[in-house]
């Protein structure tokens, strides 16, 4: 069947791109929460119980329509033991640790903050390249 979808295109062309982005972002955050619940093997009811909320509120969070506050995301992260705002620098420090293993005088699993700073500021490009090779995605 040859279908004409010009109406759909014209409706979307009239859309406010800021609002479109908001709708998408809400869904992606809800999907992230959904995935973490699965990873941690925690039910909605269980999360609600831990947080002192009704299960219906958790369902609202997962609906893709909810506009989360930062505090709510922080609280959920605390109870699920996840960091929604983890940045790549966390991986960077892990990788620096791995690279440091080859340097004499540096013990595995430990590094002094000034040594790390030295690595970052003095050998940054080199370290960055090494970091990208060694760090998981």
């Amino acid at each position, binding site marked *: *069947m040859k279908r004409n979808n010009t109406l759909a295109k014209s*409706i979307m062309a*009239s859309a406010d791109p800021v609002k479109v982005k908001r709708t998408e972002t809400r869904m*992606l955050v*809800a*999907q992230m929460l959904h995935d973490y619940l699965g990873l941690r093997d925690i039910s909605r009811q269980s999360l609600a119980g831990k947080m002192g909320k009704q299960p219906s509120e958790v369902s609202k969070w997962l609906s893709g329509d909810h506009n989360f506050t930062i505090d709510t995301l922080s609280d959920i992260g605390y109870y699920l033991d996840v960091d929604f705002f983890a940045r790549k620098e966390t991986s960077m420090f892990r990788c620096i640790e791995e690279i440091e293993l080859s340097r004499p005088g540096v013990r595995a699993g430990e590094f002094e903050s000034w040594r790390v700073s030295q690595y970052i500021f003095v050998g940054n490009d080199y370290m960055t390249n090494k970091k990208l090779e060694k760090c998981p995605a």
Partner: protein
Amino acid sequence: MSKIELVELEEFRRGAGRVYSVAVDGADFTLYDRFLEENEGDSNEELVEIMTKLNTMSGKTGFTDTFFKLNEGRPGDGLCAITDLKGKLRLYCIRFGNILLVLGGGGPKTTRTYQEDSKLLSENLLLQSVSDAMAEAIKEKDIKIEEDGSLTGDLVIEL
């Protein structure tokens, strides 16, 4: 006896699942196209929200069950609904896990239950018939749902 054709909506072929709709008795438009035409103008903002949800699901998340109003038909028929943020507009669909969605029609929700609204009731009942026909066709191996959510086989089936 009516015949329906399952038609892929290619604008939603974005990598995370497939979206189809239904053309009834040889029509050159689908139930989804009719839904857009019936509601464009007055409900453009609501349509954009629903279409954005479809874009996000088909492109990034898949058809996660929490994004739908579930159990809109009979138990086990997969009938559900997508609504806009305020719940003004309702689009009925059949959800096959996270990878395949078949869109029907819908309309504004102005009553407490869909059974009280003749338009929503007729759209819901039509899609229930489609769900029954698809279940039979899948059971008889006339239609197959592939791993990527695409439908193969004879996509013209009798209601």
